[in-house]
C-alpha cells in the first residue's frame, strides 16, 4: 500500500490521476474503520489533511463555498448562523471526537444513505464542486447520489467543496437514533423554507437506497402556502397542511428493514418528522416577521 500525502490541491489531483485506485482520506471516520476491520485494502491512501485549501470556507457572492475538509466541529462553531440546517445536522454526527475529524466531503465521498449531512444539503439545494486534472465541475446535489454508497465522481475526481446559499428562510433537521450521541440515523429529514422564491426544500436520509428529496411533497407545500397567501401573511399553518405534507414525504421514501429499524417504522417516523419540521420552521418564519 502507498501513502500519498500531497500538500497542495494540484498535487492531490495529480496523485489521484496517477493512482485512480487510491482512497481519499480526510477525517478517517469511515476509511479507517474499513482498514481496521480489514474489509478493504486499497492500493493507496490519499491523505488530504495537508491540503490547506480544503480546510477553508469562504463567502462567494450569495453563496458559501465550504471546503470539503472543513470539519463538523468547525461548521457548528463557525457557520451555525449562516448554514443552520447543515449545522443542526452536524451537531448530531457521532461524538465530539468524531465531529473534530469528520468532514462533509467525507460524508459525500462515502455517500451512505445514512450520512447525516445529506438531508440538509438536499434541502438547501447545494452543489458539489469536484475536480480532476481534466478540470472542475459542479454537480447539483440531487444528481450526486447515484446508488447505495455510490456517488457521481469519476475515478480521477476528488471532492473540492460544497456550495450552499445561506437560506432566506428557516431550516430544520430531525433524526431518529437509538440515543443522542454516537447514533447512526434510523431515518432523518431535512427541511428548508425558501420564501424568496416561495419554494420548499426537503431531504430524506436512511429511508431509500440514496439520500433523496421529496419533490412532490415540497411542491405541494409550496403551492398550498402560495394559494392561501401564507408566504406574505405569515398566518398560522393549518395543521391539516402539515399532516398532508408529512404523508407526502412518507410517500417519497422507499426504506427497507435492517438492523437499525423496520421499513414501517421509518415511514411512520418520517411522516411525523416532516410534519413537526414544517410546524417548527413555520413558527420560526412567523416570528421572523
Amino acid at each position, binding site marked *: *500500500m*502507498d*501513502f500519498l*500525502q500531497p500538500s497542495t490541491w494540484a498535487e492531490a489531483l495529480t496523485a489521484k490521476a496517477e493512482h485512480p485506485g487510491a482512497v481519499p*482520506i480526510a*477525517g*478517517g*471516520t469511515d*476509511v*479507517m*474503520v474499513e*482498514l*481496521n*476491520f480489514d474489509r478493504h*485494502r486499497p492500493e*493507496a*491512501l490519499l*491523505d488530504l*489533511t495537508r491540503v490547506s485549501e480544503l480546510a477553508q470556507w469562504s463567502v462567494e457572492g450569495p453563496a458559501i463555498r465550504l471546503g470539503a475538509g472543513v470539519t463538523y466541529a468547525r461548521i457548528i462553531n463557525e457557520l451555525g448562523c449562516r448554514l443552520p440546517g447543515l449545522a443542526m445536522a452536524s451537531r448530531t454526527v*457521532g*461524538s*465530539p*471526537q*468524531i465531529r*473534530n*475529524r469528520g468532514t462533509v466531503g467525507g460524508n459525500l465521498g462515502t455517500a451512505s444513505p445514512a450520512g447525516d449531512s445529506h438531508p440538509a444539503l438536499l434541502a438547501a439545494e447545494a452543489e458539489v464542486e469536484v475536480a480532476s486534472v481534466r478540470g472542475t465541475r459542479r454537480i447539483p446535489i440531487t444528481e450526486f447520489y447515484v446508488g447505495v454508497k455510490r456517488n457521481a465522481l469519476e475515478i480521477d475526481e476528488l471532492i473540492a467543496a460544497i456550495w450552499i446559499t445561506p437560506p432566506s428562510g428557516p431550516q430544520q433537521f430531525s433524526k431518529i437514533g437509538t440515543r*443522542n*450521541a*454516537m447514533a447512526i440515523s434510523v431515518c432523518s429529514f431535512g427541511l428548508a423554507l425558501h420564501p424568496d422564491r416561495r419554494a420548499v426544500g426537503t431531504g430524506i436520509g436512511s429511508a431509500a437506497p440514496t439520500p433523496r428529496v421529496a419533490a412532490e411533497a415540497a411542491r405541494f407545500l409550496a403551492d398550498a402556502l402560495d394559494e392561501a397567501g401564507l408566504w406574505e401573511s405569515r398566518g398560522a399553518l393549518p395543521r391539516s397542511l402539515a399532516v398532508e405534507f408529512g404523508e407526502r414525504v412518507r410517500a417519497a421514501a422507499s426504506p427497507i428493514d435492517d438492523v437499525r429499524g423496520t421499513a414501517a417504522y421509518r415511514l411512520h417516523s418520517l411522516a411525523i418528522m416532516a410534519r413537526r419540521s414544517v410546524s417548527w420552521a413555520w413558527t420560526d418564519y412567523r416570528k421572523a416577521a
Partner: protein
Amino acid sequence: MRITTTINGKHRVVDDVWEGESLLYVLRERCALPGSKNACEQGECGSCTVYLDGVPVCSCLVAAGQAQGREVVTVEGLSSEAQLHPVQQAFIEAGAVQCGFCTPGLIVATHDLLERSERPSEPEIREALAGNLCRCTGYEKILDAVGLAAERLSAPEGEAAR
C-alpha cells in the same frame, strides 16, 4: 514507512509503519505507550482518545501517516513523573475507575472539557463525554469525578491542596 512526530513532548521517529495502520497502533505497539486503549477500532467507544494538535480525536481513526509532523498527547502525557494530573486523581478518588478500559479516553476527554469550561454544567459534561463508553456502566462515578476535578482545578491555589 517512517513517521516523525512529537508524542508527549518528545520527538519520535518510528520506522516500519504499515501505511494502513492507525495512530493507535503506532502508540501502543511501536512506541510502548499502552495507555490509549484499543477497544472498538471504529470510533464508537472513545477509549483511544488522544490530543492531535490539541484536538481530542479517536486515535484508531487517524491513519499513522496523518500524524506525520503533528503533535500527539496521550493520557501518559498528562501527568508528570511525580504526580498525577488532578483529573486522574479525581477519577481514582471518586471511584470512577472500575475495569479501567475506558478511563484513559475519559481522562483525555475530561481534560479537554475542563480546559474549555471551568465549571461545566451536567448537560455540558454529558455532551463532552458522549463519545466515551464505559462497559462497566459506571457513569455516575465518572460524572462525580469530573465535578471533583472541576472543583479542584478552579479552586484558588492552596485551597485545592486541602
